[in-house]
């Protein structure tokens, strides 16, 4: 039986990080993802909430926002929903404002703006438990009296405290219909607002509300005039005249709104909040150190270095076990397929060689996400973002750009989607263009393979983690000047203010961290079992066929005195060289020769354009098939260390010299090797122009920088 139609529509609004989505879950019983960053709560979510008196309400969870001035696409949803301007949607009967009890003054700014909408409201002071721990005491009765008698409730949605009180408060607000008292504007500002309202009515014939008039007066990037159809030639002089009137009252027109609201709120909160002694002082003391202008970035770098060093050190043994397991499986499966040599090669060289080489990195991925989870849940990641924000604002990017770029370190696609939170279309475009530069987790197995096979054994574990951190910075190093040129010279983006929430420090919950680890591990394994598996089969086929039966005779004729083992290895190498993959790789290799790539690496690079981590399995296949029986029992890393140039001026020297290894990693750090990312960029920028431009720019840049690195390092450290 379906639920009866809800009696009321209730909207849940509030600043980000106030626990709004947690309260929504507690009130509706629905599960929903809760996150800290813009972009997580993009879609509107709704659910049924039982008020306990027989009435059911439709509760709508709106994206978090700091002010009604916001004009980004998701924030626009909030203002439209609250004003009842979404077709087919009910105007909310009650607005539930969720505020952080530990930071009332800032959170009530939104309440002060919402008063203009003239809707019954409830104020929920969430995270009351944290406020108690910090020694804060809040007189809810007095606060309610100063806010027009609207219900004010203390709650801790995370612990389930006060949720029943919130239900009762919604019922009371719907019955009593008490409103937040609107702000009383100084005379000149009130006159300017009235003048603007008249001007809009005269020019467009539409009536604007007082909330809308305020947006026209106070916002510089409001989309409202376009939506009203107010002609630019008429509106600009009208808005300019209204702002001049505000200036005459002694206020800066762009700062007047917060000044007036905060003045009023400070009075409303007098004697309402009593401060005691608590944990707030400790958080501030830690922040003074971690967010220090000089020490902050140094500590951040130190934490990153420590994290990667631990990843390598802790993962070493489980990686060895997985490799041993893959080898054992080869030892069991290989002989059982002796009667069908083609199938035997497909299973041992293709599947176990390729997918096995990829799966070996599972422990590193697990440990990496364990550390990322600990940093996120402890509250440090938001501080890291704050440190990085200084860099982004220097290169002219909108303050909000750091969120998509931070997401880009996990995967470029959610990073690109979260650029929708940036209101300025030019800043959105510039951010989307540089997001793919961020070192996503797909690049990790490539760096890990090179570091484990060459950097670690040659220079020690310290350099292994230093190179890993360095590779994660290479993308940033090129993203910053690219963004600078785009924002300052090409698109001419205007700087925008940005508010970043710094959550309190807390002990991470083991269950949440382990759950995130598991999600990432499951994704990695599923990728190995699906896309990597399928591409490996195709790469194997291309490197196996055509199988010319005369190859073995020709090898034997060329080296009549060679032992049977050497002949077998030479035959395998000759087979792969004359395969489709070998022919194609050799034809294209001259393009990558300045980067120090041989034809096998070239094949790996080309096969990685749909997804960059494919190179690991591709090298796994080409080195298994090409090196014959000798390599079958060994590891990919050893096969790569043994690989030498067979002809040309570098004959006899290692293919994977330090120069080639660094060039290959730099190439992967900068190249646009991800089909879904290019397609998503096209989708987000509204056409293929920018996506193709990004692909060509990143690929050319990767080639140039890799060639420079190879040529420079070859001269400084020539291969032995």
């Amino acid at each position, binding site marked *: 039986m379906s639920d009866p139609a809800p009696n009321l529509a209730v909207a849940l609004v509030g600043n980000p990080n106030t626990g709004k989505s947690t309260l929504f879950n507690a009130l509706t019983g629905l599960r929903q993802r809760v996150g800290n960053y813009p972009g997580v709560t993009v879609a509107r979510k709704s659910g049924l909430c039982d008020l306990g008196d027989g009435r059911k309400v439709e509760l709508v969870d709106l994206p978090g926002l700091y002010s009604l001035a916001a004009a980004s696409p998701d924030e626009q949803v909030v203002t439209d929903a609250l004003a009842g301007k979404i077709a087919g949607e009910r105007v909310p009967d009650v607005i539930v404002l969720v505020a952080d009890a530990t930071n009332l003054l800032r959170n009530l700014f939104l309440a002060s703006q919402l008063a203009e909408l003239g809707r019954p409201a409830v104020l929920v002071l969430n995270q009351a438990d944290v406020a108690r721990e910090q020694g804060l005491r809040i007189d809810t009765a007095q606060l309610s009296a100063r806010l027009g008698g609207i219900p004010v409730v203390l709650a801790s949605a995370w612990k389930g405290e006060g949720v029943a009180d919130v239900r009762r408060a919604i019922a009371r607000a719907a019955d009593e219909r008490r409103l937040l008292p609107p702000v009383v504007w100084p005379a000149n500002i009130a006159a300017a607002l009235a003048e603007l309202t008249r001007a809009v009515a005269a020019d467009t014939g539409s009536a604007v509300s007082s909330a809308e008039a305020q947006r026209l007066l106070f916002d510089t990037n409001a989309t409202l005039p376009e939506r009203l159809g107010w002609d630019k030639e008429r509106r600009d002089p009208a808005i300019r005249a209204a702002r001049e009137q505000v200036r005459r009252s002694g206020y800066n027109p762009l700062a007047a709104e917060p000044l007036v609201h905060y003045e009023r709120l400070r009075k409303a909160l007098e004697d309402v909040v009593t401060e005691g002694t608590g944990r707030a002082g400790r958080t501030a003391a830690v922040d003074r150190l971690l967010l220090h202008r000089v020490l902050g970035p140094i500590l951040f770098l130190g934490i990153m270095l420590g994290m990667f060093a631990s990843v390598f050190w802790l993962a070493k043994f489980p990686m060895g076990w997985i490799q041993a397991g893959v080898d054992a499986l080869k030892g069991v499966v290989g002989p059982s397929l002796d009667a069908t040599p083609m199938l035997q090669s497909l299973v041992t060289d293709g599947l176990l060689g390729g997918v096995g080489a990829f799966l070996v990195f599972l422990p590193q991925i697990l440990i990496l996400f364990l550390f990322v989870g600990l940093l996120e849940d402890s509250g440090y990641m938001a501080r890291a973002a704050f440190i990085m924000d200084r860099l982004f604002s220097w290169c002219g990017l909108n303050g909000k750009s750091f969120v998509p770029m931070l997401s880009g370190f996990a995967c470029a696609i959610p990073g690109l989607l979260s650029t929708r939170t940036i209101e300025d279309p030019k800043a959105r475009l510039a951010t989307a263009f540089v997001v793919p530069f961020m070192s996503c987790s797909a690049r990790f197995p490539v760096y890990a393979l090179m570091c484990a096979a060459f950097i670690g054994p040659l220079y020690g574990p310290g350099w292994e983690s230093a190179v890993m951190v360095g590779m994660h910075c290479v993308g940033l190093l090129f993203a910053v000047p690219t963004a600078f040129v785009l924002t300052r010279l090409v698109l001419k983006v205007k700087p925008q203010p940005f508010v970043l929430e710094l959550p309190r420090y807390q002990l991470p919950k083991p269950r949440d961290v382990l759950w995130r680890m598991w999600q*990432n591990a499951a994704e990695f394994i599923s990728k190995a079992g699906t896309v990597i598996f399928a591409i490996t089969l195709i790469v194997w086929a291309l490197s196996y066929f055509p199988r010319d039966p005369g190859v073995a005779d020709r090898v034997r004729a060329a080296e009549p005195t060679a032992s049977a083992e050497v002949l077998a290895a030479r035959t395998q190498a000759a087979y792969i060289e004359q395969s489709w993959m070998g022919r194609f790789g050799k034809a294209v290799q001259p393009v990558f020769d300045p980067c120090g790539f041989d034809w096998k690496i070239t094949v790996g690079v080309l096969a990685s354009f749909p997804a960059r981590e494919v190179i690991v399995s591709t090298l796994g296949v080409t080195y298994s098939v090409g090196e014959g029986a000798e390599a079958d029992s060994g590891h990919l890393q050893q096969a790569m260390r043994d690989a030498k140039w067979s002809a040309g001026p570098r004959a006899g020297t290692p293919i994977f010299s330090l120069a080639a290894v660094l060039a290959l990693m730099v190439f992967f750090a900068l190249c646009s090797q991800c089909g879904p990312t290019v397609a998503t960029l096209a989708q987000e920028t509204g056409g293929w122009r920018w996506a193709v431009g990004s692909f060509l720019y990143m690929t050319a840049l990767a080639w140039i920088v890799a060639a420079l690195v190879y040529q420079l390092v070859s001269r400084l450290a020539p291969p032995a």
Partner: protein
Amino acid sequence: MSLDFVLVCAFVGAATGWLVRRWIAAARRRKEGGCAGGCGCATKVGKKG
């Protein structure tokens, strides 16, 4: 034509077909305004207004 060759062709053909189908499905999802997939993210975004 040996059984060996037939089996290998079947495996490689199935893998190629599956990849092509997957790419077509991803393109369709993108067209509808959702996440292209392949990143494991749970982001679901409605059509742009």
